[in-house]
């Protein structure tokens, strides 16, 4: 597969700054379920993702989508859609409330319709406000919540949560220090336990960041392989180091 040149091919490769905190070392290999790097890449041509290089929103959304697709493969985690579903439910409910209120106000004469329109308006405002609060406080930066059950001697349950954000271009006051390009910061928390959470096997929190220029070329095409490899490394680190029997 031809590799596209990155826009900053000449610039130094900013190494990923990973900080691992709070991790309990994992038990020997037989107990450790396979991580994403041990999976072969999917056969067939990859869907081309093209974004606007100048919009960090689009860059972040493309990366988030790639994370979701990668980690929800059948052999890996099963995604928990709760946050998205709550957002969809609240949002669409408020759309229907607004539509119903508008229709009622159109059909019924103004003075008569006033109480119902007041109720509809207040309901709409409550729903959109609740949805905003939920997105901001409860969902926050989270992009993927997943779970997996594997069986090796006993049933092992793993839970993983990934959040991401964009670290914007840092503008420095003095001209001599180099400006860092926008970066994608991925944070991960991972728990592995026996079924019914009877005993904790492994727990880890990882955070890594990489500049967007590492995964997107000058035209905005995304290098899915490189991105998936990087995500796989972060996930494997969160799972508790690479297994001893990994073939590189």
């Amino acid at each position, binding site marked *: 597969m031809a590799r596209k040149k990155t826009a900053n091919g000449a610039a130094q490769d900013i190494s990923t700054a990973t900080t691992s905190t709070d991790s309990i070392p994992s038990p020997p290999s037989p107990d450790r379920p396979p991580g994403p790097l041990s999976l072969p890449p999917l056969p067939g041509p990859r869907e081309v993702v093209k974004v606007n290089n100048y919009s960090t929103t689009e860059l972040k959304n493309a990366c988030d989508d790639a994370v979701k697709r990668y980690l*929800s493969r059948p052999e890996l985690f099963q995604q928990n*859609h709760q946050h*998205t579903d709550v957002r969809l439910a609240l949002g669409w409910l408020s*759309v229907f409330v607004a*539509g119903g*209120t*508008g229709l009622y106000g159109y059909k019924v004469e*103004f003075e008569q319709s006033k109480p119902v*329109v007041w109720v509809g308006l207040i309901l*709409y405002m409550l729903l959109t406000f609740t949805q905003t609060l939920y997105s901001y406080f409860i969902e926050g930066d989270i992009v993927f919540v997943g779970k997996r059950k594997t069986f090796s001697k006993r049933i092992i349950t793993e839970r993983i949560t990934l959040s991401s954000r964009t670290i914007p271009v840092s503008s420095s006051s003095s001209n001599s220090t180099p400006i860092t390009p926008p970066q994608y910061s991925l944070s991960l928390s991972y728990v592995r336990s026996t079924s019914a959470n009877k005993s904790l096997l492994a727990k880890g929190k990882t955070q890594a960041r990489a500049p967007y220029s590492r995964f997107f070329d000058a035209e905005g095409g995304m290098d899915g392989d490189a991105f998936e490899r990087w995500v796989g490394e972060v996930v494997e680190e969160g799972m508790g180091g690479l297994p001893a029997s990994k073939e590189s």
Partner: protein
Amino acid sequence: MWGLDIRRSLLQAQSLALALTSTLMMYSALGLVMNCKSPIVVVLSGSMEPGIYRGDLLFLSNYEPRDYKLGDITVYQVEDEAAVSIVHRVVQTEVGESPLSFRILTKGDNNEVDDISLYRGLERLERKHVVGRVRGIIPYVGYVSILFNEYPRVKYTVFGLMALLNLA
């Protein structure tokens, strides 16, 4: 993977729908606060020139006390079937036996005669005919609405383009 795709399409459609509904809700809220069934109207005729021209956007209010005085510019509707709204100035007021019965006569600034011929048999207008009193004017903006109503194709193309751009 279709679960991801369905959710993503629903989220995109939702953001578009929410943009539309929030505009609708703001308009309804304005109507409730101003106690006016159409708080924002577009002027169609030039009968109030040189103060108000065709294509101007008017902001109306109709909250208590609805005592329309001489010199107020009011928007009124005579019959519900025709539902033609006319924006003219109050030139004569009469208070009847009780404070609730209150009649006005209007005339456009740019017209030679007063509006009695427009009242469809009524001698004077009553409070119930008045949609609201003009509070503010934004010139020219209303021309977009006039264009959309007189050339429906323009409306469909503009909205179709906006929808496509939002989804792409």
